[in-house]
């Protein structure tokens, strides 16, 4: 029974969201505000259950002295709330600075090691050979170079730079168009899933009750 009620509720909320396609209306506003509230509540539960509980409170409660180092992130976390105390509001920036700095450092090496090096490495190829034809390989090489030239900021795109960066834009547009067309199928699949839910699953759930 709870299953069927759940399915019908879900179907109702789905229709509320779809009604936005026609125009904004109280049903959509209801679903939207409920969604905002529920989702935030969901993350309160999940973050407590998956992070704060097992990684902070449980270790601290079971073995405080052995895990006292966990007080560091706890203090940094609590420190975010100094924002509400005007006199020491600036302290909250320390937590932000530490958090940002750590990930900025990670990003810097990851981008260079994980993206620039392999992507450049894969482009250094003998055009004759590999899985593609020589013409395909040349197109890839020329495309990569042209796009890189397009992103060159400190020279005006005149002379040789002009046509090459134009070619870069063409490659970008070709790639964007293709990716757009390619994505249609995945998005329609999502809608098919919802239509199934609305038309078939609600019926099945109801039948199952009786």
């Amino acid at each position, binding site marked *: 029974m709870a299953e069927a009620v759940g399915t019908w509720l879900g179907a109702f909320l789905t229709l509320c969201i779809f009604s936005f396609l026609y125009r904004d209306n109280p049903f959509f506003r209801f679903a939207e505000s409920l969604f905002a509230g529920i989702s935030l509540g969901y993350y309160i539960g999940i973050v407590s259950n998956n992070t704060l509980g097992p990684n902070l409170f449980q270790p601290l409660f079971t073995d405080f002295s052995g895990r006292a180092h966990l007080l560091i992130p706890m203090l940094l976390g*609590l420190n975010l709330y100094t924002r509400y105390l005007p006199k020491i509001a600036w302290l909250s920036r320390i937590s932000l600075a530490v958090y940002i700095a750590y990930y900025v450092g990670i990003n810097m090496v990851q981008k260079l090691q994980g993206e620039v090096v392999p992507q450049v490495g894969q482009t250094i190829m003998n055009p004759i050979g590999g899985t593609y034809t020589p013409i395909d390989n040349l197109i890839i090489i020329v495309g990569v170079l042209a796009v890189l030239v397009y992103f060159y900021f400190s020279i005006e795109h005149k002379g040789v730079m002009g046509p090459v960066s134009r070619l870069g834009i063409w*490659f970008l547009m070709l790639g964007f168009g293709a990716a757009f067309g390619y994505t249609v199928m995945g998005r329609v699949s999502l809608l098919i899933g919802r239509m199934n839910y609305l038309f078939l699953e609600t019926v099945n759930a109801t039948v199952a009750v009786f």
Partner: protein
Amino acid sequence: MFWKLRLPLALTFFVGLVPIVTFFLTERVFGVSFVRDRVEQYMVIIAGFALLLGVVNVVQGNVRKIERRRPGWPFAISLLTGLFVMGTFGLLSAFRVGPFQGILSAPDGSDTPFYWMTRSLFNPLQAAMFSLLAFYIASAAFRAFRVRNIEASILMVAAFVVMLGRTPLGEYVFGWIPGGHRWLPTFTEWIMAVPNTAAQRGIIIGAALGAAALSLRVILGIERSHLGVKGKS
């Protein structure tokens, strides 16, 4: 004033160097395993505390909305109700209070109220919102794909060919020529594999360099907008 500016910037510099330096070292070096095992965990905890910061702001904003009877205030009630009910079940389950001995499923495998709400309310809302994309991608294509200039034409033709090639329609176009039914699907795959790869690679290399340069500016304290501190050279 000195500390308000210098301390965050000094911390940024030193903390930022930690992952860069340890990246190249092995755990044989003192402190590396500490960084790898613990610091990441610390950051997740800090982020966990931040969520409450957001919750406080949402509650404040919506309570104010109700108090002042601003337009749409009844919807603030449904928001707060959803937040309160779901959040309470979530907290009770997360800390295993009373009968709430599990968040998504109880120890005997049965569903919890938190899970029921997730499945009946949260997941359908997510999926419904996500699926609106099917409508939007259609209307965006109709409106934006016009042959205004060379760039727009390339964009449109590429999208059109790929859309055609991905369905049985693509097989029918040249299907009357012997062997022709594979032409468009093959061409579609070629577009994805060759020119599209080139464009993506170019963007990724450029963006990664840009990201690295921004990272360096942050670590050096040149870029500091995120701290609310005005940059100066």
